């Protein structure tokens, strides 16, 4: 009907020209701190890679050229992170009804996968070299790897800052929880109140009554409203700072480790002629990367596969039980709970209730119970049992 068509016009992406679009992206990148960091670091990395490439072509050194391509490959990870942090802020439209928030999870996943690939390649190369150590000429290796290390160190510092933001986000999260708890107590205190409302409802629908109610809500909502808004605004920012940052940070750390390994092995080779040091270093680094990536991958796969969120694992049975103890609820069927993006949980469940049960009350109580557990969006289908 009417609202739908209006919504359609409003949210449909209008056609900009390319320049406007670019500038819009640019602005949105610079608007958020995470993506700004990412962007600057990407620029730094890219310029380094280009310098390396041009120098390599100029001096016709194959090693430098291939290293610069490796840098470009690294840049793809950053690019993925950046793209995700921009995309995840796009608004939802008709086809993407949940919005693009999942892009961040996807970006984390892709980054993790890339890292696994890289680790695998490094490992296989390390094995190959361990079996048959080639003589590496290490005179050129050292400066390049030191420079790479410096660049990556800058990145780590930048994102450590981001990590701070992340921890801030966590703090906020805790805050929101306390908000929920606070609202819980409110709900309790309102128990009597809603009785009164219902009572009033059975009266005629007087206009003044509604006004009255509105005023009532306002007075109550007054101190909660800013919180809620705050939280809503925090949602994308916080989300983008978690999975993406984790992936990118891991990537950078892996690169740094790689540089450190190269430097150490170059030193060892120069000083002691330990040719075996290089493959062993690279194998260790590969293992380290692989191990450190696993949690990220596990988490993002869990989210992408609509797993029940880890943090709700223990809270849910309790909630189910409380719902089943509500008066008139016979049974609880097909509970699905999943994570949309970081800290946003969505759930659907079906309740089989007695024919004479007060479905509205059950509905709101169920919502209340699961909101307490941290489920943002809940869909409760109430089926009346046949007698």
């Amino acid at each position, binding site marked *: 009907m009417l609202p739908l068509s209006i919504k359609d016009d409003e949210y449909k992406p209008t056609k900009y020209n390319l320049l406007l679009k670019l500038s819009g992206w640019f602005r949105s990148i610079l608007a958020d701190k995470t993506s700004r960091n990412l962007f600057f670091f990407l620029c730094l990395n890219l310029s380094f890679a280009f310098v390396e490439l041009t120098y390599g072509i100029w001096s016709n050194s*194959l090693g430098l050229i291939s290293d610069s*391509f490796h840098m470009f490959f690294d840049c793809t990870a950053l690019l993925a992170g950046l793209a995700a942090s921009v995309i995840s802020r796009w608004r939802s439209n*008709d086809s993407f*009804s949940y919005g693009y928030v999942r892009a961040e999870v996807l970006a984390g996943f892709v980054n993790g996968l890339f890292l696994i690939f890289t680790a695998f390649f490094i490992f*296989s190369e390390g094995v190959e070299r361990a079996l048959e150590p080639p003589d590496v000429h290490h005179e050129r290796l050292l400066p390049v790897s030191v420079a790479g290390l410096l660049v990556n160190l800058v990145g780590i510092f930048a994102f450590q800052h981001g990590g701070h933001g992340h921890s801030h986000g966590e703090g906020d999260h805790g805050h929101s929880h306390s908000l929920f708890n606070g609202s819980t107590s409110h709900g309790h205190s309102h128990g009597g109140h*809603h009785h009164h409302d219902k009572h009033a409802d059975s009266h005629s629908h007087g206009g003044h009554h509604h006004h009255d109610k509105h005023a009532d809500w306002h007075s109550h909502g007054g101190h909660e409203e800013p919180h809620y808004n705050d939280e809503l605004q925090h949602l994308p920012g916080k989300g983008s700072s978690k999975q993406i940052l984790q992936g990118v940070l891991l990537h950078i750390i892996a690169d740094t480790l790689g540089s450190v390994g190269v430097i150490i092995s170059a030193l060892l080779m120069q000083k002691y002629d330990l040719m075996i040091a290089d493959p062993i270093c690279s194998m260790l680094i590969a*293992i380290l990367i692989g191990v450190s990536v696993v949690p990220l991958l596990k988490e993002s796969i869990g989210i992408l596969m609509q797993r029940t969120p880890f943090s709700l694992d223990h809270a849910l049975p309790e909630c*189910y039980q409380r719902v089943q103890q509500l008066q008139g609820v016979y049974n609880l069927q097909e509970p699905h709970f999943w994570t949309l993006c970081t800290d946003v949980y969505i759930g659907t469940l079906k309740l089989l209730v007695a024919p004479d049960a007060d479905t509205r009350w059950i509905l709101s109580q169920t919502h*209340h119970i699961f909101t307490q557990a941290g489920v943002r969006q809940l869909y409760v*289908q109430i089926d009346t049992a046949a007698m």
Partner: protein
Amino acid sequence: MEEKYSSNVLSGGQLGMVEVPDSRLTRYIVLLVISKVLKALGIFESYDILKVVHIVQFIFILKLGSAVFLLFFQKPFSSGKAISKRQWIKLLKHAVFSCVISLLGFFGLTLCGPLRTLLLFEHSDVVVIALLGTRGAAFFIIAVICLLLFDNDDLMAKMAEHPEGHHDSALTHFLYTVISFLGVADHKGGVVLLVASLCLKVGFHTASRKLSVEIGGAKRLYALDNLVSALVLLPWVIVLSATTESKVESWSSLVLPFGMIIFSVMILEFYVEAICSAKMETPRCARYGALALFFSALLLANFWTHPLTDQLRSMSKPAHYGSTEHVLSGGVLVSAIFFIMSSNILSSPSKKGQKGTLVGYSPEGTPLYNFMGDALQHTSQSLPRFIKDSLKQILEEYDSRQIFYFLCLNLAFTFVELFYGVWTNSLGLISDGFHMLFDCSALVLGLFAALMTRWKATRIFSYGYGRVEILSGFINGLFLMVIAFFVFVESVTRLLDPPNINTDMLTPVSVGGLLVNLVGICAFSHAHSHGGKSCSSHDHGHSHHGHSHSEHSHGGHGHSHGGHGHSHGGHGHGGHGHSHGSGGMNANMRGVFLHVLADTLGSVGVIISTILIRQFGWLIADPICSLFIATLIFLSVIPLLKDACEVLLLRTPPEHEKDLNNALEKIEKIEGVLSYRDPHFWRHSANMIAGTIHLQVMSDVVEQRIIQQVTAILKEAGVNNLSVQVEKEAYFQHMSGLSTGFHEVLAMTQQMESMKYLNDGTCIM
């Protein structure tokens, strides 16, 4: 009203295991530690004895001694039920196995010395089983690798060139030749041997559990087992002592050390372990035991060669062995630390207890869990049976069968290539073989995904595992992207500086690869084009068959019924089949197909460039070919990635978008429905589209009817997992009381108000 659910049964109660206070367990822990220290001592002692006594004799004496002792204590014949003939046979098998394992174990001991043996061999079953799926496994593996690579026990290298006359029996000779055939030093061979026998031991223990129940208790089994294995070893020992001359000067001086070893290694440890694992949980028992054992082993290794202990030792050591004592190298220390960490992590009480699947609720309201989870089933299932089951599952369905056959073909080709490469010592073939193995990983992934999609939904994965398919397709696509990127980069560098390729070896291999891949392409493209069709036609066929049958048998009455069902089914399935055909939605198969296609392209490229290079000497042909191929792969992967991304981002399925919009319009027109909000529809897996919607209805309609109508409408549009939340006005009042989403609620109520007025108006008019 709050009382209904505020009687919170679970608020304080943890669902985990009940922790027994430590103080009560202290004496058991002390007992355990003492027994472990004694065991370490015994192992060190036995290492010394083994230098003198032949290994078979040694084991015989151990088994006999403990059997006598246990017969005295346990009285396996006089007590308990009689043992049948079949059980005796089983017992015999059991004993032979245990003999083999102890032979391997003690042989490993002679090879790598007591400290390394203790580190490697003495892990309890719990730890090793936990290895299969936890993080501590990494530590464990690192520790083993440390022992293998970094432990430069150079004295061992000396022993590697052992004189042939040194071995006294066929068995030790055989083991020595096996190890020297593998081309590693004795001590490394010992490490490998010990790890292998550790695995054997754990498997053996698990297998013998059933037997011990049959026989009547683990202790009785142990006693009988010792007796029987002593009997088994008896003939061998007799032959040995008849044929070879003993190196032992006087057996009498060995009585004391043997007694000590029997007591500490065989008997005390067994009893104490049994008691402790009965009193404490097994993991904790394993942890303390392992800690005590490792630390005492480290200490002993440090002080064993000390002159002070020489005096304390009961047996005087032959002088010439003094030089080949095992050193305490850095590698051993590091690996010991890693072992300690890993056994600590692995045996730490896991949270598995809380991961049981929720079965339901007891009448009192406490949740009931099913702990017969995956872990238990997996361990109790025997390996051949597991393989058989999964094979059956694989062969059941078209997709996985296809992948499986192709995987076998690919693997066979790879192994032929590898063997041939190793034989002719050609590095190119070997590296190509490894490349093929890498390709196989994509196939394995696809196969695994095809299997996993059929798993049932669990409590954790409430929608089932259907998404694995899409994820696997996505991963395969990404894989290909990365490969294409690397090929691209390499070809660019080669373009700048074309290397000299020797083309003799390339052609046959690449032709072989091409043939294999062509078979794959045929199979998968068949599956690809058919897959959609055959799948849908399968469904169709089934439903149709059923219907036509019912029509035939039921006659007129059934006819109308059948017709009705037919139209309904036809409609639904039509949409279904459509989705299959248009999307080619099985992302998994698409990914695998693309991978095989890329490989084929690669082989073709290699062949073409080889021909060009040979005929015309164009060295530039190779990089250009690979550039071209990389671009092709890249372009072909993009659609797959895009589709998979869309599904993963929870997009409304594009092929249903129109239907869904129509359906939403229809929903609005249902009588009593005021409006809807938050309609979300997304594809979960190839054949499941989930949807959720909130409906606002007038306060005087029957909710159940609306739910049914909406479900029917949306099912027609293709949504087959739907939940509808019907809201009446009172709901918002409740919710406002509970203060969730205040602004939303406000907006909605206002909206509803206007609607109501409008509705009222129409009613009046």
